[in-house]
């Protein structure tokens, strides 16, 4: 990935600002609604570029600890899902729930951080 500026993150930010400042005030109805949705989607991309790497690393470390095996994020999430379905995690519910809650909280922090505050 080139490191020249504007970076990919800065380009996404520029597109989001263009939609918010130039497009949104000049459209109405369904188009206005979809413009707001698009702005939110780009904000998700920006948050993911900024925080996603650290979240992935932490999730991977938790999965390795919980499952006692190695692999990448997709492999270990697949293994954990199969283990839950097979009832193999029933004996470690506390640790499982702690991991799942942290993972869900991270997902929300990217997808819709306002959801974590009241009246969000």
């Amino acid at each position, binding site marked *: 990935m080139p490191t020249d500026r504007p970076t990919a993150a800065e380009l996404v930010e520029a597109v989001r600002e263009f939609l918010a400042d130039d497009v949104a005030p000049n459209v109405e*109805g*369904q188009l206005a*609604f*979809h413009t707001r*949705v*698009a702005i*939110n*989607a780009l904000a*998700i991309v920006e948050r993911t570029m900024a925080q996603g790497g650290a979240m992935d690393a932490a999730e991977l470390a938790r999965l390795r600890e919980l499952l006692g095996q190695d692999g990448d994020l*997709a492999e270990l*999430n*697949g293994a*954990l*899902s*199969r283990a*839950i*379905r097979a*009832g193999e*995690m*029933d004996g470690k519910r506390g640790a*499982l*729930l702690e991991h*799942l*809650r942290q*993972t*869900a*909280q991270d*997902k*929300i922090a*990217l*997808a*819709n951080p306002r*959801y974590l505050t*009241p*009246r*969000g």
Partner: protein
Amino acid sequence: MEALQDPDKTASEQLAAVLRDRLAEEYGTGTEIVALVRLSGGASRETWSFDAVMPDGTRRPLILKRDPMDRQVDKQFEGVPGGRLAVDRWTEGRLLQLAGEAGAPVPTVPFFLAKDRRTTQGFFSHRMEGEALGRRILREDAYAVARPKLAFQVGHAAARFHGIARDLLPPMRGLPAAGELQHYRTIMDSFHQPHAGFEYGFRWLQERLELAGERYTLNHGDFRNGNILVNGDGLCGVLDWESAHLGNPNSDLGWMCVRSWRYGYHDKVVGGFGDVSELLDGYEAGGGGRIDPAEIYFWQVFGTLRWGILCMILGFTHIDGEQRSIEYAAIGRRAAETEYDLLQLLE
């Protein structure tokens, strides 16, 4: 700048011709169609508002709900014959009639629209005054008197339509609790995206299936704040019956308690406007019997998980290309909210 062609304008001119012909059969030749507008909301169906003006000048405010003209095929899933549990527009209209006869507040359905080369299948209803936007119902002063009554009233209404005798119902698909759980799990599996949080929800529910309850009746299928019509006095209509099916009636009550329709008013579990005890009091008063809150808790968990799977369905409707849509793509990410809610519920 040249004006953009408004696709709804062309569609509305074509629909106006269909409506003039159809309404002439009901109200007489010369009936005019005025103020025809497409209402927002619901990408999967078309809802139109208009007034029919009869030859003697009488005005009838009406709503037409029909299948979309541009997309006829609902999403299908590996291992799920028939796809989502849902009904066609004629069945939906018929269910509104039956619910009204059973004493639930619903719009009156006077007649139907047959599919032909100019239109998809639909049904008409008398247009009622009221607010359907959940956020406004919870926030605006105009509904301050209505809000404290709503939990009881939605419970009462549900008891009325859950009580409709099975032999009166049109043919519908349905599943008992264990089957419905499997239905949504199979849909999730069809996306080949492992989801540990939802797996834990399925596991939790499977271990507690005895809490589901035994009854098997008509389910509204999308009974929530957002699909109810409210005026200053309280509940005046139960809308949007397209997800109706046969199943455990507690599913409707638990769905009403899912956090996503509280619009931030989380201290009021039922739709953001009331408590479970009021909901169950209303249900009992409506003739539905006394329901154990533990059953509602089970179905609230089920509903939260089901909403997560429905978010995935919309996300993959975009990803798989059945309907490319920024709105569907964004809803796909709302699965994270339901996963969070689910894990909070399972303390």
